[in-house]
């Protein structure tokens, strides 16, 4: 399983994964017309990590704007983490955002409502 290092583009976020530490970072906007092409490698990586690792998985997010298709893709990721959490895996999300744009905090909050694992939403001052 290879790590991902995707550079940020105007409509897709920067993504990094680290097999050794279980840390996944995503930063930027996500609004491609077809997000599934973009998200599938990350979803595959997360599936692979959750299935073979016993170590914790940490998502470190600095996502700003997500179109509705990207929201659906992120929900798929959080659903997988929720399932792993219920099966005893250590998973967590830390989502930091600029408090000037409270829409990001509201979006993160709506995701958190459906998750029981540690999900920290952090205004960045």
């Amino acid at each position, binding site marked *: 399983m290879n790590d991902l290092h995707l550079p940020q583009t105007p409509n897709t976020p920067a993504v990094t994964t680290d097999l050794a530490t279980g840390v996944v970072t995503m930063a930027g906007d996500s609004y491609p017309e077809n997000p599934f092409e973009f998200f599938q490698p990350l979803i595959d990586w997360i599936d692979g990590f959750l299935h073979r690792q016993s170590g914790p998985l940490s998502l470190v997010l600095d996502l700003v704007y997500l179109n*509705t298709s990207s929201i659906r893709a992120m929900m798929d990721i959080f659903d997988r983490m929720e399932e792993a959490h219920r099966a005893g895996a250590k998973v967590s999300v830390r989502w930091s955002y600029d408090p000037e*744009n409270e829409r990001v905090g509201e979006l993160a909050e709506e995701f958190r409502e459906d998750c029981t694992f540690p999900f920290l939403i952090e205004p960045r001052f």
Partner: protein
Amino acid sequence: MPDVLTDLYDLRELFDRQQIMVCFNGPINAALIEEIGRALRDYLNHQQEAPRAVADIFAVYIEMTQNIRHYARQHADLDGSGSAAIVVSRDDGHYVISAGNVIASADGAALLARVEELARLDAAELKAAFKTQLRKPRENLEGSAGLGLIDIARKASAPLSAALRQIDAGRSFFSLRVVL
């Protein structure tokens, strides 16, 4: 009467009167949508609009135009479906995004009904509708602009309004107006 394209005064008057900031009419593709969107966002930031307002206007613009693109992809043989009319204007202190596209007349009534249905929901009901739509199995979503439309309704400051005009036997022009 002077040729409207030789003498742009009347056209300019119309744009000024309607406070139109951006107006586009023609074939659209992903790259064009994104370029116009970024220009719009830069303009709004330059106007020192609140970050939340800029985020909402940009989000609604993206969902409206991507809905049109999705519809066009699913109706590639429908003449004119790859084109859109997009207008961003100001009205009474609010930003207004209007977008129109050619749709199959058979889809018109259902689309209008959906817009009217969403226009009746309050914020809590729209949030619930969004979460329900988000959880629908993906294979049932083919061709539905459902999630995008709910998201647009949630960000709007007034109920959505829509219009439908018959072009010919099989085609109609659908317009959606969103006040932010």
